[in-house]
């Protein structure tokens, strides 16, 4: 499948880039932790996103990375601290066409499947029966029988009530995320509502990809990163330094979409397995 994946990109003139795993500044996300190497050598990358975007800004054109990335403390039937990611970027491509191409890549693993586009708001209406922006916090806490803050309740409903229903016999493309879920995606107005141009694709209840219409606004990203660092601090986690080289490179980032895909999970679903462990030569707890 690795060879087929590479052939997919070669046929589309997308160039492979072998980014280094060592980075000075880890990508900033309140819910993703990096594995630190030592004080002189920074961190292991959690995705090649910053490096690829810097290359895009320098004019490399359509490109992809297929290799290992690392995330601290992620261990479970769908997680391993070291896993294989495919991440690619396409210049001047419509958001809808990027979704289509991602689905075609997934067809390599599952064969052709129907594709269903599902809005974030619609997902909550269909599978939870709520209007996720109007519902009160006490009602959310009742639904989740918890005392959690709003965001945590929402994530609980996604992971426990929505995700398992997605991608049954099809590829479900979850999109139109709320603006605060944009991460590095740009935000657009759709039906009078602000939505992040971000998509996740599910097959058989498993989240496989996360894609964006890439945001090239350094000022906006700086604000989001600072916000993520505030959230990290609130969780008692150390803030991460902003990658200034990355932020300044954004000035020349071309119009593009990008997506990251969990290769091990795609292999797992292809072989109808319940865990990624059998498709990894030696998973963390087998080492």
């Amino acid at each position, binding site marked *: 499948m690795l060879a087929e994946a590479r052939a997919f990109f070669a046929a589309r003139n997308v160039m492979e880039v072998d980014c280094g795993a060592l980075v000075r500044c880890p990508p900033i996300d309140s819910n993703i932790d990096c594995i630190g190497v030592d004080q002189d050598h920074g961190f292991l990358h959690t995705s090649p996103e910053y490096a690829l975007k810097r290359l895009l800004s320098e004019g490399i054109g359509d490109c992809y990375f297929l290799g290992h990335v690392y995330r601290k403390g*992620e261990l479970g*039937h*769908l997680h391993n601290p070291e896993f294989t990611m495919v991440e690619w970027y396409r210049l001047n491509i419509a958001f809808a066409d990027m979704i289509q191409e991602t689905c075609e890549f997934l067809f390599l693993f599952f064969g052709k499947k129907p594709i269903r586009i599902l809005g974030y708001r619609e997902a909550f209406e269909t599978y939870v029966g709520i209007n996720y922006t109007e519902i009160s916090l006490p009602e959310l806490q009742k639904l989740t029988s918890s005392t959690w803050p709003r965001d945590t309740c929402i994530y*609980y409903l*996604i992971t*426990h009530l929505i995700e398992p229903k997605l991608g049954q016999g099809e590829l479900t493309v979850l999109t139109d995320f709320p603006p605060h879920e944009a*991460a590095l995606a740009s935000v657009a107005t759709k039906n009078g509502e602000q939505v992040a141009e971000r998509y996740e694709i599910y097959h058989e209840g498993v*989240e496989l990809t996360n894609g964006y219409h890439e945001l090239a606004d350094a000022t906006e990203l700086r604000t989001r990163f600072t916000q993520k660092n505030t959230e990290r601090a609130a969780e008692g986690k150390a803030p991460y330094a902003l990658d200034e080289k990355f932020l300044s490179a954004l000035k020349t980032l071309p119009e593009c979409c990008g997506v990251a895909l969990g290769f091990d999970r795609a292999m797992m679903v292809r072989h109808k397995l319940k865990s990624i462990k059998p498709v990894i030569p030696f998973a963390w707890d087998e080492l």
Partner: protein
Amino acid sequence: MSSVSTNDIRIGMKVEVDKEPYLIIGNEFVKPGKGQAFNRIKLKNMKNGRTVERTYKSGEKIDLADIEEAEMRFVYKESDGVVFMDEKTFDQMTISNELVGTNSQWLMEDTVFHIVFYKGEPIEIVPPTFMEMVVTDTPPGVRGDTASGRVLKPATTETGAKIQVPIFVEEGEKVKVDTRTCEYVSRVNP
């Protein structure tokens, strides 16, 4: 009270939830790509054996249960309970008939039980996995029965335990029994 983060929860740990002791029997990591991580934890109530599932935010703390365990030797039965003696301290204590429950069928002299305490109160008594005892009552085996595939027959032992034994076992014979399943394991040579 000491506590443990959901990230460090392992199968077999004993925790306290809603003032009840629970044994961890499963811990699954659930995380959306860009969101809050959860641990879906399966727990077994150590008092009534009921299994429940709870979801915690990853990193949330759960209190550890105040559990102590001791090896205690059966001494004698009283009207309101059973007296055991701690193998280490030689302290004696009476455990209620209610808690002993069906384990009364394994009460035999010099047998050491594993006893679990929660906040100093006994909550569970576990007999040795294998015990040797004499069969005191069993109908004679009927040879023809093997043809119909029936190779076991009921038997009662010296402790009053009702077990299933192969048809060749006779009254007065000593057998090894698996106390988890009440099944015959083997004959014991005198």
